[in-house]
């Protein structure tokens, strides 16, 4: 073992000033690949922003759904891909966000600018309470407990007529007042639906930027060590449960924001939104896109929403097709769509370089 010997010699030679010493390794900077230099994210964002003008009303409808699901899936992936926690009950926080925002705006006439952050905080608060218990369990037991909490939320939504509207739900949640957008050139002719889509796009973009930043922060790095090896992480000095709880609360909060947007977008909040099968849908979306990549879940959201529309035009067997797609993907590209593209891209580069 050459390196060890070399190292032992190095240690002996430079021992006193070892800590201050900067080696060649310190100056190793990330070499940026060509794919990194193209601002993909900005391009996609700009293209998405042109939909109300260049697309049909239906396109705007689909795009709204994609954008909201993208935020929801990214919030789930903070648990799944970053922290290594499998939640079967993430819909609960989405639902709470939708209800909090909906109830505040419809029942109490609170403006969107207050109701929207309140939805995130409400969902985060519930995530704090449920997460406190969930992180005490591991793996399947953790997943089962998240499911249990989400069913409790569903039961409350379904039965608490006075507040949630029970099985009738909360229809006709008002749009926020977006008259100010008329002042922007080109926005004058846009319908309220299109305006709300643009607001949604902007808010989701900011939210995604924040989550991205969190994932790349020291806090995010700690989460990845917990994902990889919780036992070892604890012996770096990490209070594993505390960090898992923090991730759970943040993920819940962002899911709540996505839910708030969804309630307004779909003109109502209903108990169906919080049913547990929705947690499975968002899990599928996230895995389909690729949990190992920050942009995996948004891609999964786009593909799934789009596929759903295309396929239901031809056949009623949507779940069958979805199952088949998933099967191919899980066996062919365990890294999801983005993982598959990444692999393809790297092979292509190697071919070009050779």
């Amino acid at each position, binding site marked *: 073992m050459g390196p*060890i010997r070399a190292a032992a010699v190095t*240690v002996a030679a430079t021992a006193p000033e070892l*800590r201050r010493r900067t080696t060649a390794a310190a100056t190793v900077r990330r070499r940026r690949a060509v794919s990194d230099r193209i601002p993909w994210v900005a391009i996609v964002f700009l293209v998405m922003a042109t939909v109300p003008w260049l697309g049909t009303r239906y396109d705007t409808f689909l795009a709204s759904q994609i954008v909201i699901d993208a935020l929801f899936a990214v919030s789930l992936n903070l648990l799944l891909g970053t922290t290594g926690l499998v939640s079967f009950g993430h819909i609960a926080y989405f639902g709470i966000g939708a209800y909090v925002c909906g109830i505040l705006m419809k029942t109490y006439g609170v403006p969107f600018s207050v109701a929207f952050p309140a939805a995130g905080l409400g969902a985060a608060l519930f995530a704090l309470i449920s997460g406190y218990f969930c992180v005490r369990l591991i793996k399947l037991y953790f997943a089962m407990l998240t499911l249990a909490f989400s069913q409790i939320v569903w039961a409350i939504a379904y039965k608490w007529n006075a507040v949630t509207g029970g099985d009738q739900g909360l229809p006709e949640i008002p749009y926020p007042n977006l008259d100010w957008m008329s002042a922007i050139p080109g926005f004058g002719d846009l319908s309220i639906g299109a305006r709300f889509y643009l607001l949604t796009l902007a808010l989701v973009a900011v939210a995604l930027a924040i989550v991205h930043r969190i994932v790349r922060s020291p806090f995010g790095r700690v989460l*990845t060590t917990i994902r*990889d090896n919780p036992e070892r992480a604890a012996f770096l000095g990490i209070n594993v449960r505390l960090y898992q709880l923090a991730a759970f609360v943040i993920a819940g909060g962002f899911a709540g924001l996505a839910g708030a947007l969804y309630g307004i977008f779909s003109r109502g909040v209903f108990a169906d939104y919080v049913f547990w099968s929705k947690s499975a849908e968002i899990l599928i979306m996230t895995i389909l896109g690729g949990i190992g990549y920050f942009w995996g879940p948004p891609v999964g959201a786009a593909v799934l929403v789009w596929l759903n529309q295309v396929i239901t035009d031809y056949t009623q067997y949507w779940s069958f097709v979805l199952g088949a797609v998933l099967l191919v993907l899980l066996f062919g590209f365990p890294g999801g769509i983005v993982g598959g593209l990444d692999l393809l891209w790297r092979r292509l580069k190697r071919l070009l370089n050779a």
Partner: protein
Amino acid sequence: MLEVSGICKSFGGFRAVSNVSLSVGTKQIVAVIGPNGAGKSTLFNLITGHLQPDNGTVRLDGREITGAPPYRICRMGVGRSFQRTNVFPRLTVFENLQAAFLVHHRRGGNFWTRAEDLYRDDTAALLASIGLTGQERTLAGTLSYGNQKQLELGLALASSPAVLLLDEPTAGMSASETHETIRLLESIAAERGLTLLFTEHDMEVVFSIAQKIAVLHQGRIIAEGRPEEVRADPEVRRVYLGHGLTHTQ
């Protein structure tokens, strides 16, 4: 420095560690040896808070740490490596060590800075001292077994521990790897003024670097003292008969 007194642990009816006392002085290098199943790993897990003792106490610098959670014990200055290699497989080598520095400097609560840019020099210096320079971008999970052991040592060292516990640091290594690892350990311990407590099955290794040896057999310490005393102990010779204690292979 580290004072274990009268510690006991049973699993069901099996007494894995029974009334063990052991004291490790500052900057001392102490080895715990014993046949498989003697209770070495259990003893380590009791010290580092991975297991709760049924009885007895563990003190670090006079402060009782018995039964504290592992992350607290680590923060108090105890580093440890594990018997089966234990790194963060999906992070690169550089990210592994960098994470250890981030945690040591209590930056884990920072949600906003780019983790990538922090403690790069410290990480690089530590990488050099454990002999992994040039492997920065390798995923830890794809490293060779020996390199993973080196990385694990680095993870333990990043928190600048006062006491380092190593559970079979050379397990699974070839003779030359073992030899070099031991030299590396010795030089690092000397340079950093580390107190070292380790378990080991390779007797040559033990007798070459340990200043004090404790022999564990069926959960009890049957002998303790300087290497030559332990080597001469009749009880130890009986237990180790056929294990190559006196004539190293």
